[in-house]
């Protein structure tokens, strides 16, 4: 197949996956969130400062699909917090060149949060720094580093970004 056609296809697959991803978080219950990842995936949330300085710690730091499942299970069954939901706006993914069946991608996002009793607040902005694997006609996340633009984080970071 023409390499440009393939590249365009991959971009479309990533865009479609990301649209479903934010829909699951914003309008679903997050239980299908781990399914967007491969089994031995990596997911972390950090700040731009930490990322620039190569500091490894994250606000969330998960290195298997099971850990992603556990995160949602804990949020739904164990942790105590006030009811809230997110609304993600995501930009166009900036997709790199396909290397075998994997590809790097970066996407900007803004997330508003709606809390019981509260207004709609701008909760976070940042970018996803991703590695995707193309499995059949699906793009699955191998690694997602959520880089928040600000080092100041609101007091509750429950559901995934």
């Amino acid at each position, binding site marked *: 197949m023409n390499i440009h056609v393939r590249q365009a296809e991959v971009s479309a697959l990533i865009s479609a996956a990301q649209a479903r991803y934010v829909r699951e978080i914003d309008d679903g219950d997050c239980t299908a969130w781990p399914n967007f990842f491969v089994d031995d995936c990596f997911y972390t949330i950090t700040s731009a400062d930490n990322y620039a300085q190569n500091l490894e710690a994250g606000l969330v730091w998960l290195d298997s699909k099971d850990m992603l499942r556990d995160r949602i299970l804990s949020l739904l069954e164990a942790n105590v917090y006030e009811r809230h939901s997110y609304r993600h706006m995501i930009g166009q993914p900036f997709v790199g060149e396909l290397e075998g069946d994997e590809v790097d991608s970066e996407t900007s996002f803004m997330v508003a949060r709606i809390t019981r009793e509260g207004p709609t607040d701008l909760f976070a902005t940042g970018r996803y720094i991703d590695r995707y694997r193309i499995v059949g006609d699906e793009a699955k996340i191998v690694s997602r580093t959520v880089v928040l633009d600000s080092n100041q984080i609101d*007091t509750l970071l429950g559901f995934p970004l």
Partner: protein
Amino acid sequence: MNNLAPLGAEMPVWAKEDEGFHVPYWVFQREDVLEMENERLFQGETWNYMCLEAELQSPGDFVAVHVGETPVIVTRDHDGEIYAFENRCSHRGSLLALEDRGNVKDFTCVYHAWTHSLQGDLVGIAFKDGIGGKGGMEKDFCMNSVGPRKLRVANVDGLIFGSFDEDVDDIEDYLGEEVLDRIHRVLEGRKMVVLGRFTQVLPNNWKLYVENTKDSYHASILHTFFTTFELNRLSQKGGIIVSPNGGCHVSYSEIDQIAEAEKAKNTIYSDQNIRSQSDLQLADKSLLASFKEFDDDITLQILTVFPGFVLQQIQNSIAVRQVLPKGTDEMHLKWTYIGFEDDTTEQRRARLKLSNLIGPGGYVSMEDGCIGGFVRRGTKGASDNNAVLEMGGRSIEGGDDRITEASIRGFWAEYRMRMGL
């Protein structure tokens, strides 16, 4: 934003006999109380955590931090010593450092280029003698007569504390021997490395968070992560230590080896009965994989230094937290996640995984970040009512029981003493 009494209204009286077991809610709400705190606590005879020695490796390294609401610069000079002074220009008060950290040869203000040394002394004034005989400073102007205030600095196992008051007790006396020993226990003789830094913005007065960190009573009630997934398998015992003045504390729990040995003896008979009650299980328990780091059985140690510092050991998750007021109704909690230079790759990984327990999204600490906001909202309109802190009696003595509010009462005892409230 706050429940300020009408301007000019006098501060209400907090009855002496309430000691630290009845705390009126106006203490969290009033602007004048915050002003007094900045003056009498944060700029008074207290020690305030500023940064890690590990963040100031080479001469010229600096970090810009806060002590209370006051901006402060901490540096390492060419003599190898650490210095701290206000982040405020001698001339007309602009910030001197506009970055959080870096390496510089001096601090030259951006406004009119007055230059300050790494120790905070004014050493240069642009156009001091004017141009062509015109302008310039008065001949009798003395550069030593102005300058940002300096702080006294103390280094405890790589934790750098500062005090605006020269007459503050030596830090060893301030902490008391027992608390100091518990800092040594975690940090003595070790080379720290920073794994990450996060600033959590809490929607409440800073003292509500301090109360929470000293509250050993809530842990098993508010935080249900460990109980839901039945992760606390080993019998635990523990206790609290309160410093002589009340304001510093240690709360800890350790594996109860005697109870464990007893259990082991009985296992053969009761094996069927110890099956999990709940069907909720973590799929990946490597989250909590820990390694032997200390030569005791303490799995959790939370240590606070008056007024706003926390050193945390949760298994192998080590972190420091700095509590900073931002007005009466907001605060910043600055987390620094810590590892050590000689960590193996596996040990480092274990620390990173365990840090899922802490911070704004932590399995165990996410509730702590919100509870202060619940109290702020709950106590609106109840300024003259008071919190009840009588669990475990009214004293501020430590002991081997954690169902107590003794260390919170201790905080208020020292708070009242230093505030004269």
